[in-house]
């Protein structure tokens, strides 16, 4: 099950490709669709792999993409932390 999800603001994207290149779990790919400025925004190809680390959000120079952890993953994360750092 996916631990996170990616949200994309298509209209802000300038298709630099940073998010596609540096996503640690290779969730994204540039799509063939255009936004209204004529760029190819990324789309999610492997939603199940997303860990919600938000590295895409850190890299995006156009503030057009970000990752969030799912509520279940967040709850599990706090539980493991309390339980002594189990991976």
């Amino acid at each position, binding site marked *: 099950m996916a631990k996170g999800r990616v949200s994309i603001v298509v209209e*802000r994207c*300038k*298709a630099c490709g940073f998010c596609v290149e540096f996503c640690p779990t290779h969730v994204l790919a540039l799509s063939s669709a255009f936004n209204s400025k004529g*760029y190819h925004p990324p789309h999610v190809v492997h939603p199940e792999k997303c860990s919600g680390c938000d590295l895409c959000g*850190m890299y995006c*120079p*156009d*503030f057009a993409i970000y990752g969030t952890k799912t509520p279940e993953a967040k709850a599990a994360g706090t539980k493991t932390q309390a339980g002594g750092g189990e991976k």
Partner: protein
Amino acid sequence: MLNVIEDSTVNPVEQFLRTDRMPHIWCPGCGIGTTVNSFSRALVESKVDLDSIALVSGIGCTGRVAGYVKLDSFHTTHGRAIPFATGLKLANPKLNVVVYSGDGDLSAIGGNHLIHAARRNMDLKVICVNNLIYAMTGGQTAPTTPGRATTSTNPYGTFEPAFNLPALVDAAGAVYVARWTTFHVRQLARSISEAFAKKGFSFIEVISPCPTLYQRRNKMGDGLDTMKYYKEKSKVKNGAPTGEVGLTLNGEIAVGKFVDRERPDYQTLMRAQYVESLGERYIEVTGEAEPEMECACG
């Protein structure tokens, strides 16, 4: 442009942006937006009071940051970000003053201000986005352009020796000097948080791609190719002597925290001096409104 997303989540950087001004003017593949992400994460991590922040920018591509962030910000004249920030800090010492500007603005047009603010150890956090060129004006050679790079004013290659900014501010007396590239987003955010905890002149250099003017003329590909180059060729050298971290064309990039030391800052020294020589007659500037004085001119 509004953030149109069906789910109820929101981008962590959104609260720091003037969304009505988006999309911004920076080119596709430019790294300045990435540094803004790291800056916003550092603001969250360091839990600094957002009302106490004043962000000062000069002129240039990076100078636009002041117009895009939803903080108290000032877009000053070319090269004068540091003097303006110095005045702000002296008039209201409670403020956390951040200078966010480019290499041309800080080290060329405002070069003298940079070294003197470092010498005085003014309590400023300076974030210098270094794209190795004057980007907004059309790609002229900047003092930071490494040797042999082709620019619009040096079509046969630059021959001037370049500034090594960490060495410059280290020699002038900065208490915190770090360098990262736009590839090192998390390290950069941590460095900015550390600078917020530090009193004195903190200088963080961020090497950033300029795909339109620097990379294109030097046949270095686009922004993504440059990010891959940063990933491949940058080497973390914490505590390295700053004299050895100069940049070369296509060479290795030394990154890391180079300097972290303690030195009394300008306002501490000023207070000590005036208290010693004036005693009780010295009234400290607190930044709060002063009681109205009667005009002596009659």
